[in-house]
């Protein structure tokens, strides 16, 4: 059946900001879908509030609305654009929920919009566990026994019936939010109450536990002609009980016989048909009892999911792209397989390698939270690795994580809790696999470890094989290693660093010895067909085999090092920059070579770059690729900290680094040398010093005075950064910071309390500087820039201050030898401008600046780095009026980490961002809040309690709230200040003052917005309890004065109904001029 001709305009809904459980995989899927639909002649309208996505690049859709993904705003877009159809299956749970709401409220019917990809009844059957269970029974499949609870009492009844443990799953939440496993009545009551509060329909499923069963996923596609295929099977190494997003997973499934596999395949297809998924991709999860093979269906998602992104990258089968084509009427046999070009997409990929995915957690950012892995997802990202064998892929995946490790143990960094060693095995946790490897190394049997972990013995035997090889390596010296042992070690996934540790040498010696022994890396293709057909798409992975498949070069090559797994501080923004660099350099005539290991990203799509290497971003793996590709330049400044920290080693190994040289990066990072630069330029900076010991830190502190900003050098996302108000606190944290980064000293800066922070992103070509955007922060300095909201253009700063900032930016960029992007953070205090930090590389704000101004800075930078001059790029005047305000707001994951404090500080904690834009600042800010689901109340009670410093400023805010009709509640101190200003206020008790107190009021739903500013470090205090209660009960929670002022303005904007929608295409967009001849590669490098 060919393309539908009865629809012209398709509305695609994105997934909004990156949050835990919904990461950049939906940028990947949405970007693919938009691209394929536009190529096919459809008019594409997109809604997504996340500016850091490729899909929101204006060229991916005809009309791009960076607006909140909420029914209210999407309805406005529908009213403006009148689409014929809505494709809801590519925007994750957020997109799907929004589409369901629009369908149920009658909006779609009113505007004549058809849901394509998944109909409303299908979504409901797939998502509503009761309907789903009934459907499964109809087709003779088993589901875990269970029932629904709408109150805690119901749940207790079930517990009486089924016994413990029980699994709690709230209906319609994402990433298992609010779910968990409970072992007793107390846990049951807590978990059910929490789950009910999170479920939009106040319902939780109570299920018999299948903990310890084997867990599988099938990625399935079906077309309108009822052709259906399994794209990929995935086996979870972590048994049932750990959310699949938190599980280490393997593709293809390893421990199913054909009979069992085909039973699962038949069941998957039957489920698709019964649920009625007419077109597109779905994900079905099964649990299998390892004792007797009993199979139960856990759930299905009638949409593209995180697993589909993984399956696409694991097989080369582009699920999202094909799902989009199926949604508009094509059938699988009409679509060709991009990789082979000759064969159709209607087939099931066969893979001749093994894929391992390992989640990346960030518990170190959320001290105090429970780190046990449960049915609720807690990881913030993931790395995928491809190897011929499981052992090889496992080792590669573990060294891809960017957590300071070089594989699965054997790197000299193992630490185990000896007293609770077995607990490390029995309780799922982020380090469990290290305990497993070590238990096997200590001689414990596969059977014993299997009994403790429920991990299938096959995987354990393979891990045992790895530690056996480690044992063999330990017994010989590096010189004594034979080529056979070296090859075996590499085939078991051991990194050169691990081998260096095991042979008491180092990475470089191992590399030299390895090459001397003739043990060279080979590269093989991901081709969807296990070599049966010729593949034309250069998508490679490294292994140690006999044959290499890398195609010869056709043009000069540039290699782009990606950003690795998402973690806090290093997210989609850097992937966005890498993708832009790739596009720009391809257009400039280079063959682009992408290296990355994050399966969620656009950069690891096989058609983003000319060549893709799915590899860890370590020196060893990058060098192996450099040796086959021989690039003319390597780009290390787009992928954030991951590639940057390789820059020096690569340069030392003779690899040409494109753009800003590592020396210049070093100059900017080196506080002492950089201070000399600023002194020379006559630019002010907060008094600062460097300390290499605690004693030195105290000395420096005495010289520059408190409060101090304390940070380790060379970190991203403010890891280990604190503000110290006194010596005791300083000493404690210097110790912490040194642990974070042992090779680098600790930096101490005078903290400019109450200053306004400003971020600038610019591009320098060595002669000129183009300033992309000047962002005024809403929160004051001291909050990590990644966590603070900011606005383009500035909204309180004077024009002369901004001019001063621009001038400083130009001088600094030129002075340090920037060739490409540069980000500078300034603080403005009492009209004086100070430089806080300079990073001559891509920053987290580049995508936001690009979306806000219409000039994609990363592309501009890539062109410049490849040899073009800014003067030739026809850039718009940087001082032009944009005619609107764009606010970037950070999205915090605190709801996922109960127990962790939510106060913002110099250490970044946010996972993602949204953009709101409007012709005035309050309206733009309002949109940014609505886009995150920080629902701004329209009426009710506002609780206000601020530190002494803010007592004066709060008066205006409280008065404004009062004028807007809010009742103001306050604790004693703040209440006194308000009363003095004549504002009616109701006094409430602090937590320690007795009951009922403010926490009781929040819990009882009597408070609708909380404004609570902390001073200094005051964990576990009143403020902590108030913020925790607010987060737990979903009450908007504001911790800075500036945000409070903006929020009140935003509430006013909402009450006055001033929030319209407008597409990016209405803002003038920079059109890159054609390159003036292909820049000579030699010139680009010199």
């Amino acid at each position, binding site marked *: 059946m060919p393309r539908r001709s009865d629809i012209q305009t398709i509305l695609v809904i994105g997934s909004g900001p990156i949050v835990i459980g919904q990461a950049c995989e939906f940028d990947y899927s949405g970007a693919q879908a938009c691209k394929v639909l536009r190529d096919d002649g459809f008019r594409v309208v997109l809604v997504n509030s996340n500016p850091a996505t490729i899909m929101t690049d204006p060229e991916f859709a005809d009309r791009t609305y960076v607006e909140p993904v909420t029914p209210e705003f999407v309805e406005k877009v529908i009213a403006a654009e009148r689409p014929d159809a809505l494709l809801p299956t590519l925007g994750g749970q957020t997109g799907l929920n929004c589409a369901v709401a629009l369908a149920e409220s009658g909006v779609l019917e009113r505007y004549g919009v058809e849901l394509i990809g998944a109909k409303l009844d299908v979504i409901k059957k797939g998502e509503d566990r009761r309907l789903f269970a009934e459907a499964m029974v109809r087709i003779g499949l088993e589901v875990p026994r269970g029932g629904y609870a709408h109150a805690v009492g119901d749940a207790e009844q079930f517990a009486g019936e089924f016994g413990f443990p029980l699994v709690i799953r709230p209906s319609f939440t994402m990433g298992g939010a609010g779910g968990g496993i409970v072992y007793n009545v107390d846990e049951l009551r807590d978990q059910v109450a929490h789950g009910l509060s999170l479920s939009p329909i106040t319902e939780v499923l109570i299920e018999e536990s299948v903990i310890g069963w084997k867990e599988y996923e099938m990625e399935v596609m079906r077309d309108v002609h009822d052709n259906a295929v*399994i794209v990929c099977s995935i086996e979870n190494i972590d048994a049932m009980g750990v959310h699949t997003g938190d599980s280490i997973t393997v593709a293809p499934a390893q421990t199913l*016989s054909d009979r069992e596999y*085909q039973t699962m395949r038949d069941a998957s297809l039957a489920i698709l048909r019964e649920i009625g998924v007419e077109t597109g991709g779905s994900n079905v999860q099964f649990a299998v009892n390892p004792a007797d093979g009993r199979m139960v269906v856990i759930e299905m998602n009638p949409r593209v999911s995180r697993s589909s992104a993984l399956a696409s990258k694991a097989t080369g089968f582009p699920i999202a792209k094909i799902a989009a084509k199926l949604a508009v009427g094509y059938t699988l046999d009409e679509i060709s397989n991009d990789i082979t070009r000759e064969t159709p997409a209607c087939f099931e990929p066969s893979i*001749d390698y093994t894929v391992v995915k390992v989640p990346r957690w960030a518990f170190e950012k959320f001290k105090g939270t429970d780190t046990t892995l449960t049915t609720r997802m807690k990881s913030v990202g993931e790395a995928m690795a491809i190897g011929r*064998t499981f052992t090889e892929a496992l080792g590669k995946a573990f060294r891809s994580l960017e957590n300071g490790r070089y594989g699965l143990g054997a790197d000299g960094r193992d630490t185990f809790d000896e007293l609770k060693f077995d607990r490390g095995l029995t309780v799922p946790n982020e380090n469990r696999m290290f305990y497993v490897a070590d238990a096997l190394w200590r001689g414990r049997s596969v059977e014993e470890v299997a009994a403790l972990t429920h991990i299938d013995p096959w995987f354990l035997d393979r891990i045992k094989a790895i530690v056996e090889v480690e044992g063999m390596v330990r017994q010989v010296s590096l010189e004594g290693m034979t080529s056979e042992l070296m090859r075996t070690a590499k085939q078991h996934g051991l990194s050169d660093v691990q081998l260096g540790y095991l042979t008491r040498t180092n990475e470089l010696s191992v590399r030299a010895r390895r090459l001397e022994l003739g043990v060279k890396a080979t590269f093989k293709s991901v081709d969807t067909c296990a070599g049966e057909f010729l593949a034309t798409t250069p998508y490679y992975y490294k292994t140690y085999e006999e*044959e290499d498949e890398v195609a010869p070069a056709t043009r000069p090559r540039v290699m782009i090092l990606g950003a690795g797994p998402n973690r806090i501080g290093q997210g989609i923004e850097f992937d966005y920059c890498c993708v832009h660099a790739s596009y720009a350099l391809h257009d400039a005539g280079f063959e682009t070579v992408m290296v990355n290991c994050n399966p969620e990203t656009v950069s690891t799509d096989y058609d983003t770059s000319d060549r893709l290497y799915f590899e860890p971003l370590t020196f060893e793996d990058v060098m192996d690729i450099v040796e086959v590709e021989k690039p003319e330049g390597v780009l290390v400044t787009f992928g954030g900290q991951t590639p940057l920290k390789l820059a020096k080693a690569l340069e030392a190994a003779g690899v040409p680094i494109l753009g800003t040289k590592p020396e210049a990066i070093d100059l900017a990072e080196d506080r002492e040398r950089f201070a000399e630069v600023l002194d020379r330029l006559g630019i002010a900076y907060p008094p600062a010093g460097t300390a290499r010991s605690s004693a030195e830190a105290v000395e420096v502190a005495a010289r520059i005075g408190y409060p101090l900003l304390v940070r380790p050098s060379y970190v991203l996302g403010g890891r280990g950064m604190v503000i110290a108000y006194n010596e005791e606190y300083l000493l404690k944290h210097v110790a912490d910071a040194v642990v974070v980064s042992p090779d680098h000293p600790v930096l101490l800066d005078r903290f400019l309390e109450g200053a306004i922070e400003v971020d600038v992103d610019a591009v320098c070509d060595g002669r000129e500087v183009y300033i992309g955007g000047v962002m005024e922060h809403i929160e004051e300095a001291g909050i990590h820039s990644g966590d603070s909201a900011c606005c383009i253009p500035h909204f309180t700063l004077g024009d002369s201050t901004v001019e001063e900032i621009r001038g400083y930016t130009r001088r600094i960029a030129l002075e340090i030898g920037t060739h490409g992007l540069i980000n500078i953070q300034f603080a403005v205090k009492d009209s004086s401008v100070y430089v806080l930090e300079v990073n001559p590389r891509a920053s987290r704000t580049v995508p936001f600046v690009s979306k806000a101004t219409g000039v994609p800075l990363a592309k501009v930078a890539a062109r410049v780095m490849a040899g073009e001059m800014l003067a030739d790029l026809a850039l718009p005047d940087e001082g032009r009026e944009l005619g609107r305000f764009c606010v970037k707001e950070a999205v915090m994951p605190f709801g996922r980490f109960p127990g962790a404090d939510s106060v913002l500080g110099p250490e970044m904690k946010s996972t993602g961002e949204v953009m709101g834009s409007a012709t005035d600042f309050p309206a733009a800010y309002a949109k940014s809040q609505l886009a995150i689901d920080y629902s701004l109340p329209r009426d009710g009670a506002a609780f206000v309690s601020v530190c002494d410093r803010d007592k004066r400023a709060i008066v205006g805010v409280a008065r404004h709230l009062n004028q807007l009709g809010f009742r103001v509640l306050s604790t004693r101190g703040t209440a006194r200040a308000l009363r003095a200003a004549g504002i009616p206020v109701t006094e409430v008790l602090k937590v320690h003052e007795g009951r009922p107190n403010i926490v009781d009021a929040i819990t009882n739903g009597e408070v609708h917005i909380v404004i609570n500013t902390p001073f200094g470090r005051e964990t576990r205090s009143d403020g902590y309890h108030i913020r925790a209660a607010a987060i737990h009960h979903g009450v908007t929670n504001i911790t800075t004065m500036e945000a409070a002022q903006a929020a009140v303005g935003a509430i006013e904007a909402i009450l006055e109904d001033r929030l319209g929608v407008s597409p990016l295409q209405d803002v003038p967009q920079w059109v890159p001029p054609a390159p003036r001849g292909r820049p000579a590669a030699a010139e680009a490098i010199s």
Partner: protein
Amino acid sequence: MTDRRPALLALEDGTAFAGWSCGAPGTADGEAVFNTSMTGYQEILTDPSYAGQIVTMTMPQIGNYGANRADMESRGVFARGFVVREMSRISSSWRAEEGLPEFLTRHGVVAIEGVDTRRLTRHIRERGAMRAVISTEDLDPVSLAAKAAGSPGLVGRDLVREVAVASPYEWGSEDPTGYLPVDTGVLPLEPRHRVVAFDSGVKSNILRQLAWAGCAVTVVPPTTSASDVMAMRPDGVFLANGPGDPSAVDYLYSTLRELLGEVPVFGICLGHQMLSLALGATTYKLKYGHRGGNQPVINLLTGRVEITSQNHGFCVDFASVGSLNSECSGGLEHDPADIGAWVAARTAPVVDSAAFGRVQLTHVNLNDMTVEGLRALDRRAFSVQYHPEAAPGPHDARYLFEAYSALMDGRDDYLSDFGKGRA
């Protein structure tokens, strides 16, 4: 790793692959082929169609779930040799009864692991299937390659007699070789049809599926005469899969010519080649065959695609049956050899055979547009090149057993009316 025994695989063109033994010691020759199935190694090893072949699995991790009696597709292992990237040293499955290395050793199969199987696969893909030898004894690449070059190969070779039973038996009873399958499927209490199946190397799951479809099956040697078959008064005759060059099995398709029109016929794999040869077609050897569980086949009568299990090195030339009957081919005039054009038109072309009337192309492989199924419109006979019984592989094409039953019931729409509620 320390007690590994070295082994060597050499191809007739001199290419050699070093590895370690993971099966029986010794030396074995055969045609090197590759299979892209990710599960089902035991079913593949015990499929008699692999007689004379050395099978390479493209899936790198093999043996993970061990071996058992229920997954036997025949009385023993017929593949001559087995090549894998990494053999599991443990079996992890509640179904496992022994490890795969022990299973291979017990069946005397020479096997090698540690091979760059992707290199071997690409080599076969580019140069075509070729003769090969695996040895744990002769580890000299030159000498072993010479042995490969001197081995018999498959073309013109009748391996059917080597794998078939010598005397008839009823499915569900012990076969004359002493093999009693532990899993016969569900035998019909009151069979709707009596079927005589020529054993040219039949897989057990075909017989199970026939039983599921309500057939009582008598398995007979491939040399059984048409009159002996008709004397059994069957409702249908079934032609099984089997090894080797179909053109060498002339006695079987000659017998078949006598049966066409007398009794409904269904053929699978070699059986499809037998029917085609009987109808006057010629067969040819594919460069490297189709072996795997992911081959897309379109049923031109319904337009639907089945993901199929395949194992064949030879293929039928549809156009060789006769000239186009445009009237029965939707009025189209495409060259019957241009199968892609017929697929694009979603039309099943019909040609006229010299002796058996109209022959229709029903199934086509979408990867390479080769013939996967046809039927004799005037003789109640149909056949498919692929394996609807799967084992291993997907179950999409199981409707063909129902179709066969419908054909025996006298229905003309037997190929177009089934498979809608499949799986």
